[in-house]
């Protein structure tokens, strides 16, 4: 068998889903018996059949990718419940096998896939989509790039109505239908409490999570997922504040961003300058703006 053919044959078996009892399926990817499929390319030994040897890799694959997805989406797991999450994760990984050299990117298509496949998103689809999006943004904010931050001197050079400000790549701006930031923080707080991992504690935690998810009512929020000293934080934003930042990220000038953000706003016109000033002070303190490139600063 040529190397490529052998690797395709093995990979198909390794990535084929396990049975409900976490064993290798009896049926092979080609529709025939897996025992025959395995024996075509794997040697048996005095202790293990070809099937059993292949099964070690099949199980390792699924245990690894499912564990990685579970680590990245504890909030989604809380929303769906463990059983539904496990089934969803398997379906997701069948449809979206890893295409990256790093497991870090395994969940990159979670929200878009759930949107296209709502049957896996549970009874509260909007909530599941929201939390999946927040958890992926959290991963991106954690190891996103940092550019040199804007300094007051830079602002004086670049200032003007046509000034364009660039947001730090690691800052993620998101709007949600549910206050999923609170939910995720609550889930994480419970997960940190590992000293009491008895069965009773686990059961109590499970019930607490079910209650937390059930009581969560829709309440639109605007959020910046960002970092301070390499720790990721969620910062609630006013709608107008969110709109300015979104417009800046889209490349609008500062003047255009502010104008766009206040269209139809409930904030009284006389209060707006102070609002904008306060927001800018906060964003600058948090280091959310990048230093302008020299070309722009000079123009």
């Amino acid at each position: 068998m040529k190397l490529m053919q052998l690797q395709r044959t093995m990979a198909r078996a390794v990535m084929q889903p396990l049975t409900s009892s976490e064993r290798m399926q009896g049926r092979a990817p080609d529709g025939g018996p897996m025992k025959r499929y395995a024996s075509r390319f794997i040697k048996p030994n005095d202790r293990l059949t070809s099937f059993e040897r292949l099964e070690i890799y099949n199980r390792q694959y699924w245990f690894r990718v499912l564990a990685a997805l579970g680590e990245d989406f504890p909030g989604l797991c809380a929303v769906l419940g463990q059983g539904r999450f496990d089934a969803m994760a398997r379906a997701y990984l069948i449809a979206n096998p890893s295409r990256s050299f790093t497991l870090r990117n395994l969940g990159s298509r979670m929200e878009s896939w759930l949107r296209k496949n709502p049957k896996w998103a549970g009874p509260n689809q909007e909530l599941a989509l929201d939390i999946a999006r927040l958890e992926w943004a959290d991963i991106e904010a954690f190891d996103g790039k940092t550019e040199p931050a804007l300094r007051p001197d830079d602002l004086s050079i670049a200032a003007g109505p046509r000034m364009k400000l660039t947001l730090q790549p690691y800052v993620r701006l998101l709007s949600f239908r549910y206050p999923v930031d609170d939910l995720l923080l609550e889930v994480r707080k419970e997960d940190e409490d590992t000293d009491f991992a008895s069965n009773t504690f686990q059961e109590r935690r499970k019930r607490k999570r079910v209650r937390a998810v059930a009581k969560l009512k829709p309440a639109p929020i605007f959020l910046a997922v960002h970092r301070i000293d390499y720790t990721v934080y969620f910062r609630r934003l006013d709608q107008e504040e969110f709109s300015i930042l979104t417009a800046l990220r889209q490349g609008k000038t500062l003047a255009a961003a502010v104008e766009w953000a206040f269209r139809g706003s409930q904030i009284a016109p006389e209060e707006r300058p102070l609002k904008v000033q306060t927001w800018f002070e906060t964003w600058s303190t948090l280091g959310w703006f990048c230093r302008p490139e020299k070309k722009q600063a000079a123009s």
Partner: protein
Amino acid sequence: MSANRFNGFTDYGIGIGLRAPHYDHILTRKPVVDWFEIISENFMIDGGRPLDILDRILEQYKVVQHGVSMYFGSAEKLNREHLRRLKDLVQRTKTPWLSDHLCWGSVDGRYTHDLLPMPYTFEAARITAQKVREVQDFLEIPIAVENVSSYAEYHDSEMTEWEFLNEVVERADCGILLDVNNIYVSSQNHNFNPLDYVNSVPAERVAQIHIAGHSKYRKYILDTHDHPVIDPVWKLYERAIHLAGHTATLLEWDDSIPSFQEVHDEARKANRFLRATALAEAV
């Protein structure tokens, strides 16, 4: 013999894997450690805490990069994005050599994230060696390939695993990261004498040695890196350094990770063998 062209003519001692549970201890207590091995993929990112930690480690320690997903043995082409990011990291760490596994793990752009065993064929050796050369040329540093633990063998194999390793490293003109725990695990799973393996490795190409613990099941052994090193593995290590000389040695401990001190103490057990080898070489 330890300092050779496959490890950048360095003479490193005993290192341990840099793992997240130990970050705080290392950065605050600054323990004396010869060097740290990092998993390259954990730092092939754009920014954030992992790179900050790495930069702080680099200020005080020597670091060597070890990869888990280059997949020299995959029949498909190398991933250019992977290589580009790896080169950025190589420039950051100034690693004197870089290692990854003699295995495959991706096909048609799909990654298993596992270290799957190679068929020991001449075709596979040719393809693998070509890819090692490409990576070496691109990164411009010595490459060492690591033998993996395996749980399956193929009908197609035309030679033993050690013959295959030799075939690849000769064709690629690269170094070897000799994992004596992996040799032990595979010897138990495939019924061969692990000393036959160690004795036939070209000692002059050994850039580094890995030691680790594993888990024994009823019908096979799994390479889990979650236990101390067992005596039969220490015996293989002793033989390996008898042949290769005082070689950079690293203890892998990746699961159920104990305290930094416990891991470091386990790694330093290698000293008794290294000292004996040094004495023998001096005589």
